[in-house]
């Protein structure tokens, strides 16, 4: 050991280990193996045990049980049994439990911080200053939501049993993000932690016992992906929430498609980190440290794709190198370390493989040349220069302490490059110019945008992705909404099969047509166009009388409709006031043709209801026109001297599949919310009553609805739906069609993980405003973008 006189010259830091005695004692107490927590009791593991490793020193910390079907069944049963009583508790009582959990996390903060660092390999600094306080904050925040649930969310109720699967990168924090909102809303939980990092969940179960949480409200089953699949696929689960890779998220989407389970996914990312020429470069360099050299880069929202303006690239890179050379990699329990160990050998190998791949493809790697500890899964931080969008390292999530750098010339190019990814989780912008920074933020396809900062989190700020980074939000009001459903019971019976089969056949013989031949077209890009097939099908009323012919759309018509919608970008850019005006105008023109629609509806639908349906359709236009500039975002109460905005952004291109019942009103009920919020809509009209849609597009034409903002396709609905659902250019799809398609729609949509809303082929009363319109429609027509803006000169 150096003497003090020497240290006065070298000024080395020396070791600063965190004491782990308490955790070692706890691990000794669990030497028999970590089992499950079911119905308030700890269930000993059975069968062979898996080893839980300390990734920093290659030692075994614990042995882990593997829940099979019997354990998962009893966990779901326990959650099911506990749920009604839990939901019926007064919100205040649930709040007391959540508050107690928060307090207990705080009381054991050092223990949990050390346990998490040993289990995951992340540094004690991060667990102490990040994971554990944020987890406690999440429970405090949601204690508040439990208290306020009845007054803040009238007409909404719990979903039931939530099956939740969480990743290994923030084990306790992700547990908090999942469990706290579920419990606050009155749900019960079956949670499956990652098998690489199961220990803090066990400690959390012990906290649940300490606070006296009713048995069955929280259940934890341990195991690998097979256990996770048992949880997500369990028929007793009402809602699935998953955080993890996009690949597994897609598998889950397909696994539970058609089951009627609600789903939220928080998946991978390749988040851009934009440095403009007017940025505080030192702030931006430190931002990279917080972005990708945080948590060993094992962060789904890591700003790992650095885009730097060309003129300052050289200076930025040299400063980044200098900063990187100061990073210390080593023992996670040493308080002087910046970067700990990668979670597993397999993950380390994956990171190293991608680093090698980047170099093979011609990118230049800059690594930190410091020594790494001999044992453990350590990875030196680094970054690539001379990369291009096509490089693997710019497209694949590395999930390690490795960034890439590309340059851009203009603000527009920065946005284009930033959005050139399948993902859309987070983004970072460094610029001292507020016009530029917010301008870029507005253009980014990302669920979270940080300006002049990165990786800021708070329980009040919604977090979650766009595109293939998933759907649903965690945190704040938006996060809670993912655990609530409307309390009304759908009044309708299963939807009957369509009255008409769209078969191409000419009109003739005794089915002689009307005096002037009426052949409805489809409506794409603001024009009435013939179907690509060049064919039509005969439309008859319920009595069998021939009413006319409708265009027989096919997959190419869907393609064309989506293309027209994709191009109609202007609609999302006009003011909400303008959109409202268009919707009011729509109502006005509908009103002018009231008798015409009444006559048509009286023939094709319920005659007694025709007048009421038209009236309701006009009112619905008014209601959504009214909401266009009122269903807006919020400023979240997060940190002091930060403005945290949550904006409600349109999806872009939305698909809606319209039912036969109440053909005018249901179609409008599905189109209007999307339109009001700035989406472009591709609607597949009722198969049996295409003439209603055909009449409606004439109203659209006279109502200043811009070309491409609404597109209507008629024809074989399920076939058209499949094409629309599979289309990667569609971001959101609502389905009120056949039960057969309803069973498939989520599976068809899994390709680009579009958000879906499906009524399962169960009808609702469209005339009832509670069922046929509302904030739930608007919420589902938007996605939240959270923008963090720290301020103060």
């Amino acid at each position: 050991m150096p003497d003090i006189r020497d240290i006065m010259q070298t000024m080395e830091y020396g070791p600063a280990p965190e004491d782990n005695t308490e955790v070692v004692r706890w691990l000794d107490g669990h030497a028999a193996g970590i089992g499950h927590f079911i119905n308030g009791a700890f269930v000993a593991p059975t069968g062979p045990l898996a080893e839980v490793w300390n990734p920093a020193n290659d030692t075994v910390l614990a042995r882990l049980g593997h829940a099979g079907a019997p354990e998962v069944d009893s966990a779901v049963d326990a959650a099911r049994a506990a749920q009604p009583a839990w939901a019926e508790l007064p919100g205040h009582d649930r709040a007391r439990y959540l508050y107690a959990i928060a307090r207990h996390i705080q009381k054991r903060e050092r223990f949990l911080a050390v346990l998490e660092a040993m289990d995951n390999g992340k540094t004690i600094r991060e667990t102490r200053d990040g994971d554990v306080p944020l987890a406690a904050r999440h429970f405090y925040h949601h204690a508040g939501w439990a208290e306020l649930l009845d007054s803040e969310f009238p007409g909404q109720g719990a979903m039931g049993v939530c099956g939740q699967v969480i990743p290994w990168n923030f084990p306790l924090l992700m547990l908090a993000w999942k469990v706290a909102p579920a419990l606050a809303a009155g749900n019960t939980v079956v949670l499956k932690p990652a098998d690489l990092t199961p220990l803090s969940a066990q400690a959390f179960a012990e906290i649940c016992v300490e606070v006296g949480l009713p048995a069955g409200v929280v259940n934890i089953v341990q195991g690998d992906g097979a256990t996770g699949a048992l949880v997500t696929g369990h028929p007793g689960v009402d809602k699935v929430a998953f955080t993890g890779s996009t690949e597994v998220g897609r598998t889950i989407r397909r696994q539970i498609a058609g089951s009627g389970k609600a789903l939220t996914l928080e998946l991978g990312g390749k988040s851009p980190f934009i440095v403009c020429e007017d940025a505080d470069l030192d702030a931006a360099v430190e931002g990279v440290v917080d972005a990708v050299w945080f948590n060993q880069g094992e962060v789904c929202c890591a700003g790992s794709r650095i885009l730097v303006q060309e003129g300052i690239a050289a200076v930025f890179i040299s400063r980044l190198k200098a900063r990187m050379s100061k990073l210390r990699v080593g023992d996670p329990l040493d308080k002087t370390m910046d970067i700990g160990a990668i979670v597993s050998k397999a993950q380390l190998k994956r990171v190293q493989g991608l680093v090698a791949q980047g170099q093979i493809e011609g990118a230049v790697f800059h690594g930190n040349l410091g020594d790494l500890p001999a044992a453990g899964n350590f990875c030196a931080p680094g970054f690539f220069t001379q990369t291009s969008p096509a490089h693997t390292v710019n497209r694949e999530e590395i999930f390690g302490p490795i960034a890439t750098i590309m340059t851009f010339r203009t603000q527009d190019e920065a946005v284009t490059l930033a959005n050139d990814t399948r993902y859309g989780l987070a983004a970072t912008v460094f610029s001292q110019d507020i016009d530029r920074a917010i301008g870029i933020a507005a253009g980014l396809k990302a669920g979270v945008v940080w300006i002049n900062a990165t990786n800021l989190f708070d329980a009040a700020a919604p977090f979650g992705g766009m595109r293939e980074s998933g759907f649903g939000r965690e945190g704040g009001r938006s996060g809670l909404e993912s655990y609530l459903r409307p309390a009304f019971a759908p009044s309708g019976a299963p939807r009957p099969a369509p009255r008409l089969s769209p078969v191409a056949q000419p009109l003739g013989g005794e089915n002689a047509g009307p005096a002037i031949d009426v052949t409805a077209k489809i409506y794409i890009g603001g024009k009435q166009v013939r179907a690509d097939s060049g064919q039509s099908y005969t439309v008859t009323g319920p009595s069998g009388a021939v009413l006319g012919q409708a265009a027989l759309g096919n997959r190419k018509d869907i393609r064309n409709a989506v293309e027209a919608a994709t191009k109609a970008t202007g609609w999302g850019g006009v003011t909400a006031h303008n959109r409202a005006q268009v919707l009011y105008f729509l109502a006005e023109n509908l009103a002018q043709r009231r008798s015409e629609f009444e006559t048509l509806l009286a023939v094709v639908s319920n005659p007694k209801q025709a007048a009421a349906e038209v009236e309701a359709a006009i009112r619905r236009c008014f209601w959504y026109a009214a909401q266009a500039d009122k269903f807006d975002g919020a400023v979240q109460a997060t940190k002091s001297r930060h403005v945290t905005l949550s904006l409600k952004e349109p999806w872009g291109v939305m698909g809606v599949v319209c039912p036969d019942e109440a053909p005018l009103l249901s179609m409008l009920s599905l189109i209007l919310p999307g339109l009001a919020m700035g989406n472009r809509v591709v609607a597949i009209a009722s198969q049996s009553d295409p003439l209603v849609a055909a009449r409606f597009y004439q109203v659209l034409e006279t109502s200043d609805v811009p070309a491409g903002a609404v597109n209507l396709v008629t024809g074989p609905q399920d076939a058209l739906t499949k094409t629309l659902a599979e289309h990667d250019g569609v971001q959101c799809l609502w389905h009120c069609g056949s039960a057969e398609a309803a069973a498939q729609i989520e599976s068809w949509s899994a390709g680009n993980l579009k958000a879906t809303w499906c009524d399962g082929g169960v009808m609702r009363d469209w005339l009832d405003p509670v069922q046929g319109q509302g904030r739930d429609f608007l919420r589902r027509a938007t996605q939240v973008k959270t923008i963090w803006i720290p301020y103060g000169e």
Partner: protein
Amino acid sequence: MTPDIPRMTGTDFTPSWFDTARVNRSAAERRASSLTARRSVKKDWQAAWLLRAVTCIDLTTLAGDDTPGRVQRLCAKARQPVRPDLLAALKVDPITVGAVCVYPTMVPHAVKALDGSGIPVASVATGFPAGLTPLPLRLAEITYAVEQGAAEIDIVITREHVLTGQWSALYDEVAAMRAACGDAHMKAILAVGDLKTLSNVYKASMVAMQAGADFIKTSTGKEDVNATLPVSLTMLRALRDFEQLTGQTVGFKPAGGLKTAKDALSWLILMKEELGTRHMMPDLFRIGASSLLGDIERQIEHHVTGRYSAANRHALT
């Protein structure tokens, strides 16, 4: 020992080095707060770092009631800032503080009291602390202090020049002061609490260095806000940029607000992380403080004995 560093000469007035500089306050604050959370110094290392901090202290008295007797007491403490028995227990040779810092009229008393110790006397000058006396008088004050034996002069800048963006006026003033200092090393006090924005702090730092300041110093100790970590971080980044542009090395002196051993460690960590180990030595790093030493002494005694110490076990300054 550390190799000597050539004395800096300054440069021509070069506004392009700073006129577009913008410092993001929130980011600087985040870095400053994470910096001290990212590093920790324990046990023998902590003792060594605290002794290093002692050698960097400009032991200071700048009060209206200063007298020769008060200054002599301070100088005695400067010669022997830490009890010899504690140093012996730590197996460390005798150490002194970096300098003694006084008002100009106290310089002769300090020089006399420090005779033979090798400890330089620093004098504040130029109408300290406000700096609003006429320039010729301020320059004459420098000359007086140097003639009385001050080896270091801590000047104050005219805040008006910063607040109104008169950078060339600031340059001219500081350059004139540097000329008046002659062989005495000049520390330019920016009075950062008056400058308000970190962008101003960066720019003023750069101008002071261009004008030839050997050290840039945060504060007089008389402003509402004195040395803070974000301000210091900003000044160090200016200093780093200046060194990269010119190859000249400049010292840094935080003053006011450093009161505890923990503060001293925080600033040493800042120096190490931002500029490196060489900038932790007294020829490039000073801490302007009056009460800091007492806390460090108690921590060092605790390290030696394992018992928490009391103020009365250490000699007064």
